[in-house]
């Protein structure tokens, strides 16, 4: 039976092998994602140490002791103190080991203050790039407080930096996620969470919303570019020359529920330096951005 199950797996695995480059979790870019991937491997290997023998034993017993095999039959054997101690002991040892490992890795990648990045952050504080992220229905607004620019649905960071994101939401909860770079963390209205990641290699990565937030949720991607410092400066200059300024009033227009089809990028100059705090304070004061009834109708589509 198990053999047949595995045979059905083969085409699936073959398909998977063809497009292995798409397995983003297998190709971590930075220290955080690498640690996460290592944890995945360690956990899987340790668990397989116990699961594979069990599967094998079940298969062997299942075959060996089938009714018409005339194998040894022991109709009363149901208790063995040594074995029963062992069946508690073995899982206990494995859980103890993995538990210790789990706690250790939590501190290494803790999104607020990852142990992995502490050294770089203290020796080279200049490399820390602050980004304020505001999740709206249904876009991502990135504010660069030190560069005095803001973007919608585009996150650009210089290579070698440590990116420190402060996150909040105008309306409903969400999760932010950049598979090869940044761990998932909740983004909640009226609250502020943090997410930290390093950017060691040039490249373009997709980030997106991970927790359902309403009709436009599937369209909440943002491009994440890791570029050279020069390119970053050029990009900042480009955004800074945008005629659109992101005052709080302008932001309130941006934050109206809106599906950003195709994740179109916009740039703003001179964002209100207190914008992030104002958004949090507004949410705490009860400001909501209600969804129009057109977006909560089953019939017909409206996002275009």
């Amino acid at each position: 039976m198990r053999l047949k199950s595995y045979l059905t797996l083969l085409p699936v695995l073959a398909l998977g092998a063809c497009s292995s480059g798409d397995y983003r979790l297998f190709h971590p870019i930075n220290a955080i994602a690498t640690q996460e991937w290592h944890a995945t491997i360690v956990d899987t290997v340790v668990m397989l140490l116990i699961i594979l023998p069990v599967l094998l034993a079940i298969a062997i017993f299942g075959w060996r002791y089938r009714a018409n095999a005339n194998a040894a039959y022991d109709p009363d054997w149901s208790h063995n103190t040594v074995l029963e101690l062992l069946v508690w002991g073995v899982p206990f040892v494995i859980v103890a080991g993995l538990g210790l490992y789990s706690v250790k890795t939590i501190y290494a990648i803790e999104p607020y203050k990852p142990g992995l990045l502490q050294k770089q952050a203290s020796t080279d504080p200049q490399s820390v790039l602050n980004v304020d992220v505001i999740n709206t229905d249904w876009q991502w607004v990135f504010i660069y407080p030190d560069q005095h620019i803001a973007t919608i649905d585009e996150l650009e960071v210089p290579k070698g930096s440590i990116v420190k994101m402060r996150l909040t939401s105008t309306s409903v909860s969400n999760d932010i996620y950049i598979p090869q770079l940044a761990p998932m963390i909740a983004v909640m209205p009226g609250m502020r969470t943090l997410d930290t990641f390093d950017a060691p290699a040039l490249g373009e990565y997709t980030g997106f919303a991970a927790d359902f937030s309403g009709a436009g949720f599937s369209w909440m991607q943002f491009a994440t570019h890791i570029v050279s410092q020069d390119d970053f400066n050029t990009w900042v200059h480009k955004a800074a020359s945008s005629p659109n300024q992101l005052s709080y009033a302008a932001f309130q227009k941006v934050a109206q529920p809106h599906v950003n089809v195709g994740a179109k990028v916009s740039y703003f100059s001179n964002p209100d330096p207190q914008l992030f705090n104002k958004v949090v304070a507004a949410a705490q004061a009860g400001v909501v951005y209600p969804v129009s009834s057109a977006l909560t109708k089953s019939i017909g589509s409206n996002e275009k």
Partner: protein
Amino acid sequence: MAHDTAPTANTRLFRPGYEGHNQISARTLGFWLYMLSDALLFTALFAAYAVLDTPMNAAGGPIASQIVNPVEGFWQTIAILGSVTSYSLATVAMKNGNRGGTALGIVAAIALAVVFLAFGVNDLTTLAAHGDGMDRSGYLSAYFVLILTHAIHMGIGILWMLVMLVQIPRYGFNEMVVARMLNLRMFWQFQATVWVCVYVYVYMIGA
């Protein structure tokens, strides 16, 4: 089979005349389990209250120390404990087969429960009249709903007692009536237990 023993001449395979369980015991155990379930309901409400009992969750509205009055709460404590004791004494009268005494105890319990509820309702309506209703802040939501949930339990208990006041003269102390009287005793005592928790947690520690 760890305890496998061969049958002997004395081995019985059937048990004719087996009485099975006792109806009253099964009912009181079942009701006790319901009350544990109800206790978890209050636990969740207390957890919610604990989370929402911060100055931030008051959202500019009143905080606990501004709305609770431990002294008034003490009169409520005496009223509800008096009610519980009267009802419990009614079941002592039932033990002696005294229908009149049982009814008297129940009436006294209802009267004291109404006194208790009057205090509570007065508190909540006064707050609401000042614009500090349950829709004012997260803290007040938790406060109102905790108090109201307890009050609704009290109301159900009073209704139940009224039903018993009809059933006792009608049926006498038969199995069903006795089981209900016992369950109601647990239910009513449980309201006092919850109130002790509310009084201490909301009225005293909040003060």
